[in-house]
């Protein structure tokens, strides 16, 4: 069972490594921001699996931290970059 959890974690890490390609390619900032959502979701999945594997429930707090802050970057992009074009309202 433990070996299975480790395989799952490695698979998810592999997913993150694949997603890095999109950071390289872009082409727009929004595309790159998309990868942070991918990393966030995958990271939360890794943390949940790790919590199950190590039986350490405090890891869930780290997952919630990622979770509640994930939307901040998107709102930051949308609001800050919109003002550049003078379309604040």
């Amino acid at each position, binding site marked *: 069972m*433990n*070996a299975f959890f*480790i395989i799952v*974690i*490695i698979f998810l*890490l592999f997913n*993150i*490594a694949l*997603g*890095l390609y999109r*950071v*390289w390619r*872009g082409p727009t*900032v929004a595309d*790159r*921001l998309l*990868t*942070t959502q991918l*990393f*966030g979701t995958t*990271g939360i999945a*890794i*943390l949940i699996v*790790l919590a199950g594997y190590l039986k*350490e429930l*405090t*890891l869930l*707090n*780290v997952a*919630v*931290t*990622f979770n*509640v*802050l*994930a*939307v*901040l*970057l998107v*709102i*930051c*992009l*949308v*609001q*800050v*970059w919109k*003002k*550049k*074009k*003078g379309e*604040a*309202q």
Partner: protein
Amino acid sequence: MSVLIDIILAILAIYLALQSLLAPRLSQSVFLFFAFGLALALAWIRLGAVDVAITEAAIAAGFLGALFLDALRDFSVSDTEKQENTKADQSLVSAKNTNSPWLPRLALGLGLGLFLLISLEAVWEIPSGGGLTELAEAMLPASGVEHPVTAVLLNYRAYDTWLEIGVILMGLLAIFAVGGRELYRKPVMAVQDPLLRQVILFFTPVLFLFGAFLLYVGKTGPGGAFQAAVLWGAIGILLHLGGWPVFAVIPRWLRQLLLTAGLGFFLLLGFLFIAGGNALFEYPPAYAGFLILIVETLAAISIAAALTAIFANLNQMKETPNETETTT
């Protein structure tokens, strides 16, 4: 078998650290740095430091991400005139680089090599030395909290933590010194998009509650003032982005009080202990837990206010020149 995870994490973290420095585009660097923060948080968990992992997650995913995106907008060159400028700058820099003598490079390389050796040696020393873990665990009943990390931060080494709170305030003061402190008074219109409005209004209480939870749980497990402060600071940033600059609207004395409450109360407590015949920051064991909770709460409020002010100020500083050309 779980060594495999550690190896992959180590490779990923080092690769991302290098790439976020060497990436040709600034926006690549910023988002690679975000991925680096994630890899680092996972690495801290594998090392058994959940406290640091929460801090890393909160700062890398939240605060630094917002700051970097804001800075990225500033650097993103939409008009060609700016682009030419940077190109000229770059060619200037590269010309300088090719002509630079080999001596500074050699000195830099040697210095960095020496630094690397010293840090490797420092890492090597930890397992053989044994550290202070046993001592910290033994004194835990007298410290007022049940989690050794919180005990070290708020009791044994309270002086260091006090200075750390001061460092964040100093950062804010530096920004004030460069940009002026009145800039973010400018009223911003609230967002019109109903969905954006609702998501900001939904996540504000969630962030507050989870921050309070982390603050309280710091007494018995991973969590504490700094983690809570970043989450509460994120509330300020969210509200600022949503067009409710709460921090700029409140009266000035309240702002000053919020910013300095943590630092001031901590210091006042220290002097009271001296007056009572103890050392600086030597809590009486009977009240230690209660006092630590108050100090942590005030420190979290102060740090959150400072982080909000830093973001609000940096965000507005670049807006003023843009505003004049775009208001038509």
